[in-house]
Structures are given as structure tokens and as C-alpha cells.
């Protein structure tokens, strides 16, 4: 009897510690996203500084907040494994440049808007969590924006942004794998096209 009790205790303790190890600090993840968006809105979008300074600040924020190496791997899908190291680096850099350009273009649309955070939802991936937010719109329902955050040690990185159920990572993956499949030039052609788009 005593032995059984001890075993249950040991098991409970074991389960507790593994759960704690696997868990992501949802509270801190939310704080991280709030900081990133605050930084973006106050110090970049609404700041009274020249465009070049805005772009530079945004680039820094973007690189600090998003794990583009991680996202890029997923985005290339099955083609990541067959890509050469050079192609991988070139792709990540081209994808990064296009994203920075795309998001800077959206600054104007974002003026005067703000995020209202609505807590977190768990992810099936142990070290990740979804931070929920909405953006009130001029008309109609607010837009739903969900941030997928990955924790490594005590560091947080955004690995996906889901706007109205549309995941940026899945969108890019669907588009780029379709492109590679339909294009005889393959990954190299994709990299060239992405580079051209971000000029």
C-alpha cells in the first residue's frame, strides 16, 4: 500500500516536471507580443521621423521579433531538404527582404489603429503558444490577429501571424511550393523572383 502510494507520488512528480519543462510561459509570450506591437506603433508607425529612419527601425524590430530562419524552412516545405546550403541562405534572405518591404508598405494602413489583446491559446507544439488579439476596424467586425510565439530558453520569437484565419507561413508555403512545382527554374527561379519583388 505504502509502496503504491510512493509510486503514485513519484509518477505525479515526474509528470509535473516534464509538463513544466515542456510548457511555454504564456504570460511572458503575451507580454513579448505586446512589447513588439507597442514598439512598432509608437516608435515607428506613429513616430515623427523620416521614412528612411522608419525603415531602418522596422528592419531591426522585424529581425529581432521574428524567427525567419525557422519560418523559412517550413515555407520551402519538401524542397528545403533538396536545396543546397547556398540556396537555403539565399532563399531566407530573399524571403526576409520581401517581408520587410511588404510590411513597411502596410504602415499607412495601420495608422491610428491598435491591438486589443485577448489572452492566449495553447498549441499542440509544446514550446509554442498563440497570443490572441483583435484590431478594431472603421466598419464592421474587428479583425482577428493571432500571433504564434515560440519560446527557446527565456527567448521569445514570433513564428507565424494569423490574420482572419490566414496563416502567413502556410500562405507562403502554399504559394512557393506551387511556384517551384510549376516552374522549370525551380528554387533558383523562385529566389530570383523574390529578389526582384523586394527591390
Amino acid at each position: 500500500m505504502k509502496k503504491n502510494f510512493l509510486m503514485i507520488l513519484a509518477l505525479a512528480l515526474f509528470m509535473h516536471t516534464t509538463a513544466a519543462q515542456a510548457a511555454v510561459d504564456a504570460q511572458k509570450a503575451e507580454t513579448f507580443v505586446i512589447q513588439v506591437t507597442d514598439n512598432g506603433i509608437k516608435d515607428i508607425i506613429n513616430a515623427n521621423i523620416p521614412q528612411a529612419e522608419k525603415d531602418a527601425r522596422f528592419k531591426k524590430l522585424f529581425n529581432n521579433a521574428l524567427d525567419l530562419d525557422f519560418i523559412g524552412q517550413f515555407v520551402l516545405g519538401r524542397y528545403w531538404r533538396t536545396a543546397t546550403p547556398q540556396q537555403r541562405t539565399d532563399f531566407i534572405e530573399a524571403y526576409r527582404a520581401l517581408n520587410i518591404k511588404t510590411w513597411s508598405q502596410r504602415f499607412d494602413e495601420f495608422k491610428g489603429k491598435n491591438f486589443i489583446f485577448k489572452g492566449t491559446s495553447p498549441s499542440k507544439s509544446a514550446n509554442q503558444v498563440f497570443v490572441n488579439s483583435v484590431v478594431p476596424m472603421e466598419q464592421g467586425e474587428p479583425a482577428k490577429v493571432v500571433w504564434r510565439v515560440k519560446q527557446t530558453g527565456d527567448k521569445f520569437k514570433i513564428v507565424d501571424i494569423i490574420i482572419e484565419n490566414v496563416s502567413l507561413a502556410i500562405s507562403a508555403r502554399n504559394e512557393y511550393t506551387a511556384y517551384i512545382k510549376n516552374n522549370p527554374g525551380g528554387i533558383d527561379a523562385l529566389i530570383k523572383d523574390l529578389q526582384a519583388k523586394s527591390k
Partner: protein
Amino acid sequence: MQKKVLFVVLLSFMMVTTTSCTTSRSVTDEHDQTDTLEAYNRAMFKFNYEFDKYILKPLAEGYRDITTPYIRRRVNTALANLKEPLYATNNLLQGEFKDSGISLFRFAVNSTLGLAGMYDVAEGWGFPRKQAGFDSTLAKWCVKDGPYLILPIFGPSTPRAAVSLALDSAFNPLYWATYNDANVHDKVTYSYAVVSGVATRESVMDIWNDLERNSVDFYAAMRSAYLQNRGQSGCYNDTESNAQAAYDFDFGVEDEDEIYNEMENQ
């Protein structure tokens, strides 16, 4: 070898059993499996693109030029008001009786006090819009979506969405109010189609331009966005967690890819 085959069979069995109703599309599914009509779709997409370029987009741009955001908001609110009978019907069909009542109430209040729906008076009173169309009703009744399908002029759709589009339009009060006078009826319904088409195109102008400017394959980009956006509405017996599962994918899909590669090589 045999072990591998067994693993693939087991996995595909798991995928079949876990794929409920309409939600939870696997990531690889999205571009390979659900676009069985890709050759036709791409051709129709091209046609629609030209139609948009020379007709719809210039109309929408012209409309934007000659109106202010305030006027466009009034037009959009009035157009949305005409959908309240549709929302009332579908809320009823989905068992949302309270929402159905709210939709009817909104239609009555906004059509009169809201000056033919130009102002959303009811929302100010604490009765916001409760959207529900036939597509969400059919989804709730567990009707499957079917393959991605580009319709002429109307664009991205699926068989279920296309049927819903037709059913939805039959609930337009303008259609019934003018039914007895064939002459007026035609003028009213055609004008409505043009006005709502142009107003809708104007309202998606920025997001459309954004997507087109930043994509290397506009067709694939739009397909992906469309399918993900509509993937949320689930069957009545789906749980909340299933709805979220659509974007809670596993980033490490290497194993899954390997299986697909093997299936392709066989």
C-alpha cells in the same frame, strides 16, 4: 519495406479518421489535394483577371475617386442591410433563434430609422450584425465543401460556396419587392448587381493590391488565402479546438513530406 508500407497505411488511416467534416486540412493537402481542377481554375482565373483589369477594377477606382469614405460607408451599410433577411433566415436554420430575431429587428429599425439602411441605428442600441449565410448553414449541416473552384466573374469559390451564392441572392428583398413588375424588376436587380459588385471590389482594393504586388504566383496566393479564410466554419458537432487546429500545424513536417514523396515515386 513491409514495415514502411504498414506505417503509411496506418498514417493514412489516421488522417482519414481525424479529418472531420470541413475543418482540419493538412498543410500538404491544401495545395496538392484540394485543387483537383487546377488547369481549368488557372484558365478561368486568367479570364477573370482580364475582366477585372479592364472592367471591374476601373469602375471601382472611379467609384473611389468620386466618393468620400463617408459616402462609401453609407453605401456599404445600406447594402449590408439588404442582407438582414438572409441572416435572419440562416440564423433560424442554424438554430440561433435569438440572433435570427436580432437580424429581423435590425432590418426593421435600420430600414426605417436608419434611412433605408444607410445608418446602423440598431448597432448603437447594442444589437450588432449577426452574419449567417447559406454557406455557414450548409457547413453547420456538415455539407462538404468540395474542390476549389473559380467561377466566371465571381472568382474563388467551391461547389458549396457557389450553391450558397445562388441561394443567398434569392433572399434579397429588392428581388421580391419588385417581382410583380418585370420592367422595374430587371432594372432594380441589375443595378443592385452592379452597385454591390463595384462596392465590394472597392472595399477589397487595398488587400487585393497588396496580395498581387507581393506574390510570385498570384493564383496560388489567392487560393491559399481563400481556402484558409473559409476553413473555419465547422460542422455542428465539431469542437472549438478543431476550429483552431487549422493553423495549429506542426512546423516539422519532414516525416509527412517523406511519405508524400514516396507515394509520388511509386
